[in-house]
């Protein structure tokens, strides 16, 4: 059974990574947030309410599904899909937003803000805010507003105000910049519901804690179905929330390979990609030391991915630590390969994955044939692909 206990670091550091590099105005708010997080995760009433929301509202536990036809098609490792796409709102993001917005409610905050890339975190935040009756505003890059129009409409229907961000590269990075500027100006009554396991301490720990339900469930489910641990677990990596959620369940199992799949865009060698861990250099963006796509002068580089949720030049600090320590492996899948991953899963299993999650599917498709039929893979299917039909239609067209 999943429980919220002791899952956070005390100092916000993961080896050389992490920390809280923010304007002084925000530092006291982060201290307040950390104190609230410690207090609430220790509070049985909070735990009970959160776990009940996950079950009764979000529909957990999500299934661990043996993808038989996919496995047969690829001819190798048995592939299980962790069906986060079946959660309420259609992705893993709801796990974290129910936790954070419940915190906001208990902290007496009058307003919630969030950033979003693909719109999945925005929709999940809008949903939690509607459920708790808290006003919500979501910052979204203007480019993403266009390519994820369905999710913009969903947020609006849920009563959330979507603010299109036209500064910088008009994607997730700039949405985070604007949300931070909003938070600096309204820090006393506003809760910033951060969507990924990145950002300043304590966000990487908070997000991982609320998402760790994924890995905890997957571990128990595979033991029940197969009587043993998987050989590898795979997850796509943008900021890293679904990856940290899955990996956290297997960190203490050295036999399980942890494989993070980044957005290779047009190919890492072209420079048009979002593969921070594969091709980046450690630096500080959005409050933490972590791998970053930056130039020789420390300016943040523009990124590209067909998947708006992965289109980000940074990554969570714990994933940077897992890379340097060698515990996790990271590689990149191109836009083209991700699209093939969508098609493969749609045609073999009748499941349309989000473009983000399709990166992990595509990597599994590469690996599985090289592995023996008695080996086991778990792919975190972090979200469903309905939001991407316009992008996909353009590609199939």
């Amino acid at each position, binding site marked *: 059974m999943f429980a919220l206990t002791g899952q956070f670091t005390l100092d916000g550091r993961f080896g050389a990574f992490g*920390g*809280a*590099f*923010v*304007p*002084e*105005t*925000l*530092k*006291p*708010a982060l*201290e307040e947030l950390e104190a609230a997080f410690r207090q609430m995760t220790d509070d049985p009433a909070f735990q009970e309410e959160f776990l009940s929301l996950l079950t009764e509202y979000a529909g957990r536990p999500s299934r661990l599904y043996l993808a038989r036809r996919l496995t047969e098609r690829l001819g190798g490792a048995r592939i299980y899909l962790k069906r986060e796409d079946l959660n309420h709102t259609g992705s893993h993001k709801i796990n974290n937003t129910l936790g954070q917005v419940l915190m906001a409610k208990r902290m007496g905050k009058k307003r919630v803000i969030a950033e979003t890339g693909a719109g999945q975190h925005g929709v999940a935040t809008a949903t939690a805010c509607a459920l708790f009756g808290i006003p919500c505003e979501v910052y979204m890059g203007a480019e993403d507003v266009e390519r994820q129009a369905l999710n913009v409409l969903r947020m609006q229907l849920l009563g959330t105000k979507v603010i299109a961000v036209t*500064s*910088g590269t008009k994607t997730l*990075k*700039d949405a985070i*910049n604007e949300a*931070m*500027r909003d938070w*600096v*100006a*309204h*820090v*006393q009554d506003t809760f910033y519901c951060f969507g990924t396991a990145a950002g300043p301490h304590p966000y990487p720990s908070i997000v991982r804690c609320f998402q760790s339900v994924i890995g905890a469930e997957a571990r128990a489910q595979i033991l029940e179905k197969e009587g043993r641990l998987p050989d590898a677990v795979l997850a796509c990596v943008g900021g890293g929330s679904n990856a940290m959620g899955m990996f956290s369940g297997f960190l203490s199992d050295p036999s399980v390979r942890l494989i993070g799949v980044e957005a290779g865009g047009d190919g890492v060698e072209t420079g048009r990609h979002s593969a921070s861990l594969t091709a980046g*250099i450690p*630096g*500080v*963006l*959005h*409050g933490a030391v972590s791998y*970053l796509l*930056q130039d*020789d*002068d*420390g*300016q*943040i580089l523009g990124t590209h991915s067909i998947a708006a949720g992965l289109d980000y030049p940074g990554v969570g600090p714990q994933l940077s630590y897992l890379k340097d320590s060698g515990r996790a492996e990271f590689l990149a899948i191109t836009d083209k390969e991700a699209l093939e991953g969508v098609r493969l899963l749609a045609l073999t299993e009748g499941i349309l994955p989000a473009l983000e999650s399709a990166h992990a599917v595509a990597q599994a498709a590469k690996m599985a044939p090289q592995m023996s039929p008695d080996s086991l893979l778990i792919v975190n299917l972090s979200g469903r692909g309905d939001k991407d039909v316009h992008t996909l239609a353009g590609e199939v067209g």
Partner: protein
Amino acid sequence: MEELRGTERLAATFAALKGEGKRAFIAYVTAGDPDLETTRELVLTLERKGASIIELGVPFSDPVADGPVIQEAAGRALAAGTTLPKVLETVRQLRRETSIPIVLLTYYNPVLRFGLSRFAREAAACGVDGVIVADLPAEEGDGLRQPLDESGLALIPLAAPTSTPERIRLIAEKARGFIYCVSLLGVTGMRADLPPDAAALLERVRAMTDVPLALGFGISTAEHAAIVAPQCDGVIVGSAIVKLIAKNLDNRPQMLDEVGAFAQALAAAVG
């Protein structure tokens, strides 16, 4: 007499002003907006018209503490190819013409990428006196503070209306040069009204330290400057100056005239 540098030059400037019963007018421009040659001329104009300290912004691609006016200035500066080494070179050139204290205002990543120790050495060699890092709170600052101390340069911290008494104590302990007191909750930029939080913050910080206190964020007119000046040791004006630069990008003589006239009014109001 040997010319003072770094933290000592800042201290001497505040002390001299205090001796005359005056406050520092601290003028901000983004280096390289629209190009570094113009920045050089702007700095000399600001000094001639009465600025006591120059704050030179090092442009960063993701300036989360800045409002639209300075974001756009950073965008222009980056588009013109401005880099940290080029900003340092500009200061080195300025040092042939002026001894006004110059502090750099930057975000952490460009400095980290340059190398903390190398930055401290080269900034000192070029004649920089201090550094303000918008996203480096007191706890995270030791890695940069130590090499800056060794080079005699000030790492100038920020204090905000939200800073708790414990945090203000920590900030005051680690402060060099002066403390940049953020007058309001929000990003840089002009405001119609003066923030009510400013006086309370200045009082709280003053109670903890004798380090000079400069007030910034949202001060956009000579009238504002005159009202806040008596409560602090220095007044920082940024966005309102940068806006005059942005307005006159096609006409450099007029840009210098308008910035000069505004600086003169601010200096008179602060003094």
